[in-house]
């Protein structure tokens, strides 16, 4: 039922596709982490801007990533922005997870005691200096594990790129399947790849969490 | 059998890793006797009650309740470790009141008092409710029987907890620092209830307490624990009036000065 020769045949092909998956994960997460921080910072700045950001975040989180990928891929060209499938897909993933990450940062900001802001005002620090030198260094370390968990979640959603024909792991497995009529090996291998990577990263996040809570706890 | 005390700790030891909490404890409590356990924190006094309630395992020795071994049972003439059924049968004789009340927050005062009689004793709902109502009346809370724990003061919650324990008709009642979590002005109402059940029910009572005045007035015997051992025990008049042991004297002086 399981063909080892076939498995060894397709391994290098899948490995090349895995590189695309990892690239998509890395770029998508950089967008998510940076944009998320910007969104959370805007929420701090004024209640009105905060409400707008909160509504945007809710909108993004309430609709499927797959539809958002389609939307960027099919709708943007209509307004003259033509993106290749990889760029559109990774951008959609990054935007989607930016919404989640902004909530993580927000929790981080809320955990910094009010007294830190008040002490900074008492020392006559500018708002920007306060934010950059006092608040951020305290808010960020505790939320790193939560961000790590979203990195893993984002990684597991990259197979959605196959829906717009980006040849990442899942798409490659489907192509192999449709060419050879053998789905068992490629799809199982993809599953195993995600399982191993997720378990390893979850372990790393746990170690990091322990280290951070000893260092900053 | 009639010779046997209600509770017997026979060479009981309890360790956490390398740390010995209780060292070879021997203690008998007679039927109907009221014993207070006092001592500095970390002296193992709470552990004495928690072991009897099976909330802590023991590392050595034997616990006897009402003439029967609790942690062991006899099988083919030999003592073997007790199974769950045996432990539940013995445990039915014991009730406990906790420092932090531990009422069930999703049930009313009455609901707290009928839950175990119905599910554990298989009592009918009507009978359980009548009995719970009597007990709540005895602790002075018949007006609050439909209130939830979150709507009651600490003192009221603790009185419900006492009624809840009594509803199981125990022969032995354990009180674990039952007034320690209360605001000072609420301590009196709880002690009043304990005094009353001491007088009206033929219960064997073990209590861990910091209320020296109450221990002196209420108990038949006081045990002073120090570093996992009974350092001194005797009638309250002796312990509080004329302590023989230097440690006891130091402890009582410190407590009286503070309070």
């Amino acid at each position, binding site marked *: 039922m399981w063909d080892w020769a076939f498995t060894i045949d397709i391994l290098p092909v899948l490995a090349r596709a895995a590189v695309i998956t990892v690239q998509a994960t890395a770029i998508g997460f950089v967008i998510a982490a940076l944009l998320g921080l910007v969104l959370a910072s805007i929420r701090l700045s004024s209640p009105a801007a905060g409400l707008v950001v909160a509504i945007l975040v809710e909108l993004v989180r309430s609709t499927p990533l797959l539809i958002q990928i389609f939307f960027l891929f099919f709708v943007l060209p209509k307004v003259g922005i033509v993106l290749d499938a990889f760029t559109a897909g990774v951008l959609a993933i990054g935007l989607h997870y930016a919404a989640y990450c902004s909530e993580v940062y927000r929790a981080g900001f809320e955990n910094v005691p009010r007294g830190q802001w008040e002490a900074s005002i008492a020392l006559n620090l500018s708002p920007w200096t306060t934010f950059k030198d006092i608040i951020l260094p305290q808010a960020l370390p505790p939320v790193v594990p939560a961000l790590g968990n979203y990195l893993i979640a984002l990684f*597991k959603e*990259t197979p*959605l790129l196959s829906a717009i024909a980006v040849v990442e792991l899942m798409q490659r497995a489907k192509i192999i399947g449709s060419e050879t009529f053998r789905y068992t090996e490629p799809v199982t291998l993809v*599953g195993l790849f995600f399982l191993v990577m997720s378990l390893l990263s979850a372990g790393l996040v746990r170690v990091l969490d322990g280290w951070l809570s000893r260092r900053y706890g | 059998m009639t010779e046997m005390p209600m509770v017997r700790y026979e060479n009981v030891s309890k360790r956490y890793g390398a740390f010995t909490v209780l060292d070879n404890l021997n203690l008998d409590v007679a039927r109907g006797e009221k014993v207070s356990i006092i001592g500095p924190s970390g002296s193992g006094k709470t552990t004495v009650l928690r072991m009897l309630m099976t909330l802590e395992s023991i590392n050595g020795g034997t616990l006897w309740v009402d003439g029967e071994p609790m942690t062991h049972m006899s099988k083919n003439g030999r003592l073997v470790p007790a199974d769950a059924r045996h432990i539940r049968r013995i445990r039915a004789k014991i009730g*406990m009141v906790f420092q932090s009340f531990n009422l069930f927050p999703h049930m009313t005062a009455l609901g707290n008092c009928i839950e175990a009689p119905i599910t554990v004793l298989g009592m009918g709902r009507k009978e359980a409710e009548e009995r719970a109502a009597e007990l709540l009346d005895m602790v002075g809370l018949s007006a609050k029987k439909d209130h939830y724990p979150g709507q009651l003061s600490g003192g009221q919650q603790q009185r419900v907890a006492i009624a809840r324990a009594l509803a199981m008709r125990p022969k032995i009642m354990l009180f674990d620092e039952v007034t320690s979590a209360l605001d000072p002005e609420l301590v009196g109402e709880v002690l009043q209830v304990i005094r009353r059940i001491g007088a009206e029910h033929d219960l064997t009572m073990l209590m861990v307490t910091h209320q020296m005045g109450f221990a002196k007035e209420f108990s038949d015997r006081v045990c002073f624990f120090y570093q996992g051992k009974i350092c001194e025990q005797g009638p309250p008049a002796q312990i509080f009036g004329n302590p023989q042991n230097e440690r006891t004297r130091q402890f009582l002086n410190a407590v009286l000065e503070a309070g």
Partner: protein
Amino acid sequence: MWIRVLAAMLAATLTAIVILSFQDGFKVFVPGLLQGAWLTVQIAVLGALLAVVMALTAALAKLYGPLPLRWLAVAYIEIFRGTSALVQLFWLYFVLPQFGIFMDAFPVAVLALGLNIGAYGAEVVRGAIRAVPKGQWEASTALNMTRAQMLRRIILPQAFVAMIPPWGNLFIELVKSTSLVSLITLADLTFKAQQMNQATLQTVPIFTLVLLLYLAISLTITICMRFTEGWAAKGVLHGKAS
């Protein structure tokens, strides 16, 4: 405060859907998309039921089951949390038939999504059970309850309250992942959108309507869960717990 914003967002979404469905250029797509949305809702509801059952079973097995059962629960939770929903869907759809197990796309969809969300739900249930204060277990032991009685009467009702917000998030995740079933040929909302898009190339109206429809479903769930949360906190715990 936020609940009012949510309600306003839902009202705006529904209004937009109604207005657009009378506009030329939009209205031809509405019947087909509603059909797809109906299938989406069906899959989501059945998937949610399966997820709740699996979550409770796996959490209790992992916490209190005998050893082999505990391993089984851990394996289930780790495998379904460790791989993508889409990979699971494809595996059930493409690989099971090669082992002689043939299922229609609809049961495969419900099974895959229910098992996936159920694995996350199991950790939610387990966390909520463990968050019930230790004193509640001790008091139940002192009242001589069996473990089954404690769980059923004392622990689970309290854990239930703590579970509602995370389950709200999981149900939203479930609704969103129903869009994946379009990739195994089920004619859900996303599938209909893709199909119409390929046939007419009217991308903007189609995807606008689709986004609004998903938004309406998700916001309805979010608002319902908020109310359930408030009701449970009041109706089960009655003020702060002791």
